[in-house]
């Protein structure tokens, strides 16, 4: 308890508060810019943190990490360009909301749900990190296979009206995920001798192409059409009623997001995808999804920020980072002479609580900044198209090139811009494709690893309780709508039949 209070006390220190504020602001900016993510920034700033005190360094890196995941949603909502891969699910409904003139509402709910998800996960981290971390050991390839199948099971329902088209889009995504070196055989697939394809298709350029460039081409079809944004509502923030509508989605997503983040092999992007599915599954307003459902923004945003706290669990408690950013934070810890592991919680609690309190503070700070600036940001949707879309284009190109400094990423953007444009033209949605791309690799790799472990005996999957559980949940999820319909029908018959039987 003393350590906890001492950790919280740093928030009274103006220097520490300044560091956290700087980290949060920087995090929001780099998160919002496509091409520079929280991980790139923390890597580039790592040498700088070496000169700081351990506490300040960790507070700085931690607050960048928290804020960057929120920042990604800003551009996803406003210009259909996820600033961070983890915000791709946010664009599915966030951008339609902005187009409808509800940018302020979308940004506001994103800030609120991000902060709730983030703060929830920090509390889980404080209370249950060592316990939750042990769970990671129970997750081998078979369990990840079960989880990936669960994640993909909802894919037919996501995206457009036509389930067949959604599945086709997902298949294309899974197919794209097979590009590159096959992990279990070392064979290069579909790389055509291009070096940068050997590690697989880069996710960020695909996103930028499918969303930003496709939208730009779409805008070109509207050439000369007067933009009829409902200007007055564009800057309105969400109301209490909006928040109530999202409460369930935020609660579910905070929990699932923290859990998925805590699994070392999965990160914020997967968490956001799965929680987008779950938000729709549990929503009363399923029809709104894909057309600007406020729950479709709240769910993924709560999830990807909850995954931040979750990802810190194995990093701190096991010394195993679950994402690039946590790997860098781990490096930062190690350079500062802090050795992560179960003992960290007993040996150096003071430093640990500095991490916790700075993450809490960062979550609160971006909530305040995000809500405060939402009205300002929302005005971006009012910028004339002749300035907005060329700027989006240039930002996309620079952002696509920056992480790997490779021209092939620029071509990827352009190619997927055309793909995205054709997709819309023929009634396909990019959402299942992205889901397939994120989860497809995991399905194949974990399946092949599992079979190697099981000596190619498929039945061995049934000896793993977690896998059986995940399969069961998947099946229930798939058939629940039919069962529910059958149940209502039976009940109706049961209600009406006695009356009919009476003489």
């Amino acid at each position: 308890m003393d350590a906890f209070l001492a950790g919280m006390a740093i928030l009274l220190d103006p220097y520490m508060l300044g560091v956290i504020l700087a980290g949060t602001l920087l995090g929001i900016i780099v998160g919002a810019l496509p091409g520079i993510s929280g991980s790139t920034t923390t890597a580039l700033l790592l040498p700088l943190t070496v000169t700081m005190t351990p506490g300040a360094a960790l507070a700085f890196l931690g607050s960048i990490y928290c804020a960057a995941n929120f920042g990604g949603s800003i551009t996803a909502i406003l210009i259909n360009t996820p600033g961070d891969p983890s915000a791709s699910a946010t664009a599915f409904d966030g951008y339609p909301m902005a187009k409808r003139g509800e940018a302020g509402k979308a940004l506001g709910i994103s800030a609120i749900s991000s902060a709730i998800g983030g703060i929830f996960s920090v509390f889980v981290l404080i209370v249950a990190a060592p316990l939750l971390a042990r769970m990671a050991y129970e997750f081998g390839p078979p369990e990840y296979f079960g989880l990936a199948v669960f994640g993909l099971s909802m894919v037919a329902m996501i995206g457009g009206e036509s389930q067949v088209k959604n599945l086709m889009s997902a298949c294309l995504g899974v197919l794209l995920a097979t590009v590159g070196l096959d992990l279990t055989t070392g064979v290069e697939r579909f790389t055509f001798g291009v070096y940068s394809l050997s590690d697989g298709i880069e996710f960020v350029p695909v996103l930028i192409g499918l969303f930003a460039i496709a939208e730009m081409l779409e805008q070109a079809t509207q050439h000369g059409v007067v933009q009829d944004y409902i200007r007055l509502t564009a800057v309105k923030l969400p109301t209490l009623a909006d928040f109530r509508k999202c409460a369930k989605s935020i609660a579910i997503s905070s929990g699932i997001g923290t859990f998925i983040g805590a699994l070392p092999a999965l990160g914020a992007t997967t968490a956001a995808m799965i929680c987008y599915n779950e938000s729709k599954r549990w929503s009363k307003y399923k029809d709104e999804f894909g057309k600007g459902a406020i729950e479709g923004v709240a769910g993924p945003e709560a999830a990807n920020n909850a995954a931040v706290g979750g990802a810190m669990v194995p990093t701190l408690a096991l010394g195993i980072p679950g994402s690039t950013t946590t790997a860098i934070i781990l490096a930062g810890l190690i350079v500062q002479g802090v050795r992560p592991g179960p003992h960290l919680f007993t040996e150096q609690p003071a430093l640990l609580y500095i991490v916790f309190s700075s993450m809490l503070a960062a979550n609160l700070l971006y909530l305040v900044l995000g809500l405060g600036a939402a009205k300002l940001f929302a005005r971006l949707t009012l910028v004339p198209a002749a300035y907005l879309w060329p700027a989006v284009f240039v930002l996309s190109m620079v952002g696509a090139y920056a992480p790997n400094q490779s021209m092939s990423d620029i071509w990827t953007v352009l190619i997927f811009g055309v793909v995205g444009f054709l997709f819309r033209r023929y009634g396909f949605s990019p959402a299942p494709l992205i889901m397939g791309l994120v989860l497809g690799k995991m399905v194949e790799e974990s399946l092949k690893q599992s079979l190697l472990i099981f000596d190619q005996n498929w039945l061995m999957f049934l000896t793993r309780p977690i896998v059986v559980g995940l399969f069961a949940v998947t099946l229930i999820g798939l058939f629940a709508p039919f069962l529910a319909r059958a149940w209502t029908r039976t009940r109706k018959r049961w209600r009406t039949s006695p009356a009919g039987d009476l003489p």
Partner: protein
Amino acid sequence: MGRGATDRRVAGATILLCAIVYAYTYTFDEVPAALMGGLGAELFPRLVLWTLAILAVLLALHVGSPPMDAPAPIPRPVWIAGGAMLLYVGVLELIGMWPASAVALVGLGWLWGERSLVKLSISAVMLTGALNLVFVRLLGGSFPKGLLGALVGP
């Protein structure tokens, strides 16, 4: 063209794509026998291709997917915008990323209907400068300088 013809064309294109990619899977390197422990590299992609092809047939038959109307022909501004994007890559290779970006901002803005070159130029320089500040000055990224840049630079 009647309703559904579009779906059949989409399905046809998908199946053609599947066939080409499927043929390509035969060119994968062979795995040495000593390493071949489990499922081959080509198996999973082929499975996905089969699924995709079957779904395409369902689409053509309108099973689980309502027939869609033929979309309007692609308007000319889209072709122009697409061409401008390709041009950008060419210009980029020639004069470098930052100058090309400034040019693109002016050019695309003009295409989008803004006629004041002064306003476009000022905003282009400001935005390129701001991006340069973040990506290069602050984060130390390096960007293509183009043929021209190679001649001038060291």
